[in-house]
């Protein structure tokens, strides 16, 4: 139970409270300020019903030093809110001569630290005005695209309720080149609506000989509550600290962030004096912070950094999203993905034809997850021949082909943190070939013509072989053309079979290094080469039958194998 009065009365800090909703909470907060000894001037929006207003007044009955400003109807972004503040400030200055600093707060602001801390803080800076005030031409934070134009256009329509008219009217003025004259001697500044000014500055603003002119001008500026005092303070302040003592964060649409019970620790650690907005039903926050804590005054500076970080990451999530993720609330239109997949992956074409144990070798040397032909026509060949893979991906061809793009994106997303590699070849779905070519995350290594090796080993009828070879060659030629075209965004390396074999160990080393660049270890073991004895003759046979295989490069028909390769079945040769 709180004993009244809880704190010794020290009327050096006066508070103007603007109240328009959640009146029960506002009354609680007002009581807290008052019981801590702050003189209060409260403005209650005229839109508040008579009954609610009466209840609010009743809740504050009996508290000392509370005055009420004449009620105006305040509309968002309009002058009336500044007018109400001015009137309240005049009452404050006149009725409470001991007040040295005036703090502007709203009913949904919540003091986080004992007011003695705030008073002590201000006492140490008796001449300082705390008001965020930035030259409008030099800051990029304005939401909605209206910066300087807030001060030079006219805004007869309400932004929230008459958005279409508002926008059309702005466009019209731009087209006509309309421009209001800014009164001489002032430089438009904007900043947080919540300030804390010294009596001297506030008096000077309110008693400025040109105030009528300024008021007339600002009454037609858009959102003057973010610019009137911010601009005027520049004229009159002696020592202006351009920051607000109220922690108030806005999202990418300019809407204030809310604080909830789960922010409690964050708010305590922030050491900010006042925070807004608090969700009215955040009981834990209200109960915690409205207890009068008779603690030792704590001189620490406010540090809103962790809170800034939290909200910055929320903004990032909302605006950029997680690259490579497609889900129910992130479904970017083509070209808007910020990356098709979430991580680099490798595609190998021809390698598993040339080397009999390429997949196991690759996963052993690089630690990557190595799949077979993910886009094989009969279904996805996941690592180890699994029917279901990470995330529940099905190997069924029908399911995969329902949306190959998402299938691939999901696979990479589900296994983020582990490098994925898979095989691709001329028998696989050509659509997948397009997919990987477009993706900057794809590292595609191709040995062209290697598809002939399994044909060479097959026992099929030669005519069938000839036909298959023709089909594969055509498909591969088209795919390689695509990979070489300027539209391809993937990183591509292409060898013909003959080229690759000239220097196979070094080429394998390059591949291993791209998958695990930090390891950079010398390969100690080579994959097992398929038996190529007679391969040159096989190619010549195809030629003799009119089917000219050219993708593999030059293989002399007299069966000379490139010398640096070990024959099949021999022990792996260790390169220098």
């Amino acid at each position, binding site marked *: 139970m709180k004993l009244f009065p809880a704190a010794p009365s020290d009327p050096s800090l006066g508070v103007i409270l603007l109240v328009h909703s959640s009146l029960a909470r506002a009354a609680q907060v007002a009581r807290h300020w008052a019981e801590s000894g702050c003189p209060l001037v409260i403005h209650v929006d005229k839109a508040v019903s008579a009954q609610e207003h009466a209840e609010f007044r009743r809740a504050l009955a009996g508290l000392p030093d509370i005055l009420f400003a004449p009620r105006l109807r305040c509309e968002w972004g309009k002058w009336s809110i500044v007018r109400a503040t001015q009137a309240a400030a005049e009452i404050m200055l006149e009725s409470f001569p001991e007040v040295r600093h005036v703090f502007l707060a709203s009913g949904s602001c919540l003091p986080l630290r004992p007011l003695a801390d705030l008073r002590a803080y201000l006492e140490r800076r008796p001449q300082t005005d705390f008001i965020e005030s930035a030259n409008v031409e030099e800051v990029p934070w304005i939401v909605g695209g209206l910066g300087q134009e807030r001060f030079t256009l006219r805004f007869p329509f309400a932004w929230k309720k008459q958005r279409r008219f508002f926008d059309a009217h702005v466009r019209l003025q731009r087209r006509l080149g309309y421009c209001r004259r800014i009164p001489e001697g002032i430089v438009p500044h904007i900043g947080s609506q919540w300030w804390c000014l010294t009596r001297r500055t506030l008096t000077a603003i309110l008693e400025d000989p040109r105030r009528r002119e300024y008021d007339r001008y600002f009454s037609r500026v858009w959102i003057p509550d973010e610019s009137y005092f911010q601009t005027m303070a520049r004229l009159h302040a002696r020592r202006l600290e351009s920051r607000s003592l109220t922690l108030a964060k806005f999202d990418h649409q300019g809407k204030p962030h809310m604080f909830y019970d789960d922010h409690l620790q964050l708010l305590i650690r922030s050491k900010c004096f006042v925070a807004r907005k608090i969700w009215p*039903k955040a009981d834990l926050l209200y109960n915690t912070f409205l207890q009068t804590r008779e603690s030792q005054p704590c001189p620490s500076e406010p540090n809103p950094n962790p809170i800034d970080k939290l909200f910055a990451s*929320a903004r990032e999530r*909302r605006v950029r*999203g997680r690259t490579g993720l497609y889900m*129910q609330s*992130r*479904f970017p239109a083509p070209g808007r993905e910020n990356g098709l997949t979430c991580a680099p992956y490798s595609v190998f074409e021809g390698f598993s034809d040339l080397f009999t144990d390429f997949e196991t070798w690759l996963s052993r040397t690089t630690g990557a997850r190595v799949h077979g032909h993910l886009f094989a026509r009969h279904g996805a060949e996941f690592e180890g021949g699994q029917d279901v893979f990470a995330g*529940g991906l099905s190997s*069924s061809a*029908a399911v995969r082909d329902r949306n190959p793009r998402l299938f691939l994106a999901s696979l990479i997303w589900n296994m983020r943190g582990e490098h994925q590699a898979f095989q691709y070849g001329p028998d696989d779905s050509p659509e997948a070939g397009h997919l990987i070519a477009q993706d900057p995350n794809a590292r595609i290594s191709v040995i062209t013509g290697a598809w002939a090796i399994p044909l060479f080993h097959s026992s099929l009828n030669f005519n069938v072989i000839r036909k298959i070879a023709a089909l594969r060659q055509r498909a591969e030629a088209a795919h390689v053309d695509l990979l070489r075209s300027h539209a391809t965004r993937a990183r591509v390396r292409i060898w013909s079979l003959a080229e690759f074999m000239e220097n196979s160990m070094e080429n394998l080393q390059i591949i291993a290094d791209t998958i695990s660049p930090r390891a950079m270890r010398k390969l100690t073991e080579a994959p097992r080469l398929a038996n190529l004895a007679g391969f040159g003759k096989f190619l010549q046979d195809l030629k003799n039958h009119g089917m000219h295989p050219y993708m593999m490069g030059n293989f002399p028909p007299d069966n000379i194998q490139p010398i640096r390769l070990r024959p099949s079945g021999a022990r792996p040769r260790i390169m220098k």
Partner: protein
Amino acid sequence: MSKLLEAYRLRVRRKRKLLRAIRKRRELRSVADRTREIRPGDILCFTTLRNERIRLSYFLRYYRDLGVDHFLMIDNASDDGSREFLAEQPDVSLWTTPHSYKRSDFGTDWINGLLRRHAHGHWALVVDVDEFLVYPFCDTRPLGALVDWLDASSMRSFGAMLLDMYPKGPIDAVPYRAGQDPFEIASWFDSGNYMLEKNPVYRNLWIQGGPRMRAFFGDNPERAPALNKIPLVKWHRGNAFVESTHMLLPRGLNLVYDQWGGERISGCLLHAKFLDTFREKAREELNRRQHYANSHEYRAYHERLSKDSNLWNQWSEKYINWRQLEVLGLMSKGNWA
């Protein structure tokens, strides 16, 4: 021009849907009408059910704890005591109907009728008794915080994908007891096998995948059930659900996703369908033929489940909390922090 025509056609469709809803309201007979207790700003929950007595206590408890203020429920000829149980609940208004579920567009018409009469100006949550809403921060912030935030962000609808949950082992190995949290048994799900497609007319996303697509529809995935849902809507009397809660008219309500690379806020509806109660249900529904497309879905279930009823595999993910679903990318906080 064709765009205008399309917009006009959708408008006609919406009006017709609303007329149907009003006509079908006559099929409902009030059992317990407590709608006078609904106060402005209350969050309302709408549900159609049939013979779900065993699930009801946990369902009501779950949503009461989240902050639903009033339940408006339609009983489709239950004979297991569901009606009597619900009629006694102080925060439930109940209607009953013996008419055809199928011919009321799988309950959509009935629900639309109740929504139009009782939900105007309220946030309305439309869920089945086996669907449990999970949204960002649901362990620390009540539903009221979410809808207040949606209001402040000028958002009128909230998407929550259906996430099919299943047990490890045969689905009927562990019997479900009344009042029990179904996810103590069915605590597993598929984390990353969902296919999305945009519906060009209604502009909603069509989502398929999960264990049902993998296990039951591997050969014809296009018939797999839709998982996209928009269960929470700031209701206006001109709104209408079109196909269950998969999509709405006016179609602007279906834009619960971002198309510029960012993420909007979204949740999940944990689906407690695959419990021991399922086999019985599947048989019953197969006989009644009251479900979508001649209950082909239930036929597929029946076929597969009579062989092997284990949906679990080594890649299944065990449910922990909403943060896990967020990290996995099944739902998003958007810019709520």
